[in-house]
């Protein structure tokens, strides 16, 4: 039977647009504006002088005050906290990748008696959520003497995404063919060698996705450094910018604060532009499963 002319093209989209679409497009454009406007405001304000800022919110900067950025970086602690953030992120990402890559390989590729119990043990705690553990995590960190230290924060953060990442990695690794592993065993490779030379390289896309998510999570995390770190010297960016904003109540150096905002946004923008296909890809996996 010949297919009647479809109103849908090959990508599943409608072929013809109607008047109603004009209204929708205007609404969508409005929302785009709502997103862009505050961000642009922050950006051009960061290049003004404070006098220009107090004059009018709309006025464009006369001469671009790049020294605002310099001041935020060196005098107001942004530079130092940026280093702290790098240390924190590197440590936490390495730790978490190590933990989940190793563990999920075994959970995905081996069948042993306790396997399902262990898997559900990990996944199961998704049901108890964040607010409860805010207090008890703090108590625990204090008992472990891990407060007020970047190392302690690294160790804590390294553990946080375990459940979500286990879900992703185990699912992915299960889908990988086992023939390569078996060929390696026949050739006499140890389990460790197989893991290192075959298992991990095969899992590279999933590991990358996991790390992109980890990066976002760690970079954006505010509440945990706020709770666990006391010395301003050790603040990562998120808390440093917060404390800088609080000091504005008596300092009123807004343009510098805004340049701090922009500085903090830059790595996020970079990672997002580079990896946004990974982010969207992975959420699709979640949707298909659900």
């Amino acid at each position, binding site marked *: 039977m010949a297919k009647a002319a479809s*109103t*849908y093209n090959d*990508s599943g*989209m*409608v072929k013809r*647009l109607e008047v*109603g679409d004009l209204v929708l*497009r205007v609404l*969508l454009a409005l929302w*785009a504006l709502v*997103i862009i406007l*505050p*961000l642009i405001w922050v950006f051009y304000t960061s290049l003004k002088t404070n006098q220009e*800022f*107090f004059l*009018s*919110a709309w006025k464009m900067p006369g001469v671009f005050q790049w020294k605002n950025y310099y001041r935020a970086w060196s005098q107001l602690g942004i530079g130092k906290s940026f280093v702290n953030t790098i240390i924190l992120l590197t440590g936490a990402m390495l*730790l978490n990748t*190590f*933990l989940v890559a*190793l*563990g999920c390989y075994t959970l995905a590729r081996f069948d042993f008696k306790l396997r399902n119990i262990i898997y559900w043990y990990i996944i199961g*705690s998704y049901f*108890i959520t964040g*607010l*409860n*553990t*805010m*207090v*008890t*995590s*703090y108590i*625990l960190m*204090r008992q472990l003497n891990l407060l007020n230290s970047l190392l302690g924060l690294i160790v804590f953060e*390294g*553990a946080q995404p*375990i459940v979500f990442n286990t879900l992703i990695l185990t699912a992915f690794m299960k889908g990988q063919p086992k023939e390569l592993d078996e060929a390696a065993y*026949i050739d006499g*490779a*140890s*389990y*460790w060698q197989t*893991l290192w030379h075959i298992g991990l390289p095969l899992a590279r896309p999933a590991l990358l996705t996991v790390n992109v998510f980890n990066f976002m999570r760690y970079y*954006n995390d*505010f509440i945990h450094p706020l709770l666990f770190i006391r010395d301003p010297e050790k603040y990562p960016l*998120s808390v440093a910018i*917060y404390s800088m*904003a609080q000091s504005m109540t008596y300092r009123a150096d807004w343009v510098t*604060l805004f340049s701090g*905002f922009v500085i*903090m*946004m830059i790595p*996020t923008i970079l990672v*997002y532009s580079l990896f*946004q296909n990974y982010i*969207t890809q992975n*959420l699709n996996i979640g*949707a*298909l499963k*659900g």
Partner: protein
Amino acid sequence: MNSVIKRKGFFGSKTFFIIASLAPLLFFYTLFLVVPKITSFYYPFTEYDGVSDPVWIGLRNFATIAKDADLWDAMKNNFFYWAIATPINFFAALIVAFLLVKKPYPEGKFYRILYYFPAILPSVITALMWQFAFHGRYGIFNALLNAMGVNVGEFYWLTHATAARWALIIPMVWGGWAGNMLIFMGAIQSVPVSLYESAELDGASDTAKLFLITVPVIWETMKTMIFFSIIGLFGAFELILVMTNGGPAGATEVVGTYMYKIAFGTEGIAAFGYAAAIGLILFAILGVISIIAFRFMDRGEAIEMDG
């Protein structure tokens, strides 16, 4: 198959590998994720100021909770934000996802990237940016309203109780629904186009009718998302903490900020036990709501299958 050429002894064995590969993961998981959850069932029954040892006081914290008017006010705010922001986040995401997947607008590809951007911004930045945007004198919000002819003068949004409460919804929504949007987009893409085509033949040219096809097909995904949004009932916290810290005078206080102040606030002695007790109550409330929601949603499905 001679599989033990190089693997000698215990350390080369499969058992050792399994144990050694899982041990670090399980150790860190148990210590930092399981222990705090377990102790969250213990500390609520104690009085603990963080300095001296915890003292077992049984149900006394819960008696205090029952009389704590501030706490219940905070819960009302939680419910307020949840009731308003969640439907917006949900339906805006669904509609926009539908448009972006089904309509060949040239700007659509750009929107996919742009709309998700606020969701990946650090929440601190979103909160601070909007906090200053709402500034009475120098903020862009008033500047925009005044420029559009809505004369608000120098109204300080965040220092007036009612205004603050409503104003906070804007940043919540600004960063909030893009995550849902992506998930919906993935789900909608997997709906067979043939379903839409048959509906067209039956005369369903209305976009609304397309809606009635999409929703049932992606219902599984929606159920999961509804579930997570229910769990998020008490989640609004970081944004409020940074923007208003519950102010002015508790107008925007939510359970999270309240707990935070009790446990870590500068108002004197820390009350970890009491804060943990609040957390336990939240857990119980969420548990009950989840069970009810599940029953409700599954029953709906059964009816569909019978009919």
